């Protein structure tokens, strides 16, 4: 195993450990003092995200030739094309996030239910992120 690969694995392991500390700390704080079931949501969402990241990191370390563009890009193992796809996709979502947030703000000002507006905003941005990544990955 090369020094570079060992260093990358060490950084990935440290990132996962740090992510766990942040999620658990934030989740427990929000369970104690946060509104509703926000703490449980942070814990569940955080653990799922870290689990998916760990699986991608494991696959990238073991069989990099069998991994997807998204796995390599998200775990920092991507080449220049992977990085370009990631950058274009993030830019697309970033540009659309501005008007979407504006629309959500208007909806909230018109007294639309906060939970529904925020749920629609979150899912719209997530779907746009995945769709734009797939689009640019197939085009590039």
């Amino acid at each position, binding site marked *: 195993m090369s020094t570079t690969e060992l260093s990358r694995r060490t950084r990935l392991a440290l990132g996962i450990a740090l992510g766990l500390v942040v999620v658990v700390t934030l989740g427990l704080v929000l369970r104690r003092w946060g509104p509703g079931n926000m703490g449980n949501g942070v814990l569940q969402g955080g653990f799922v995200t870290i689990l998916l990241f760990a699986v991608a990191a494991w696959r990238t370390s073991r069989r*990099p*030739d069998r991994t997807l*563009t998204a796995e*390599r890009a998200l775990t920092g193992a*991507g*080449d*220049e*094309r*992977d990085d*370009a796809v990631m950058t274009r996709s993030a830019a697309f979502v970033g540009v659309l996030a501005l008007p979407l947030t504006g629309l959500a703000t208007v909806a909230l000002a018109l007294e639309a239910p906060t939970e529904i507006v925020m749920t629609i905003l979150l899912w719209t941005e997530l779907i746009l992120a995945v769709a734009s990544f797939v689009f640019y990955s197939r*085009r*590039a």
Partner: protein
Amino acid sequence: MRNDVRALRAQHGLSQAALGTALGVSRQTINSIENGRYDPSLPLAIAIAHQFQRTVEEIFHVDD
């Protein structure tokens, strides 16, 4: 931009994965370059040229 990467790779008997490994990029990147969907950076284009012992201009051609 057109290129002769696929033909040169075939001449040298390399798979996309093998060429990708030699250049430090993924098989998908080689595939995208060969199909003209992705234009490589200058360092990668130079690395490809070195790999096949050609110049960049001999491999990559700007569409007219």
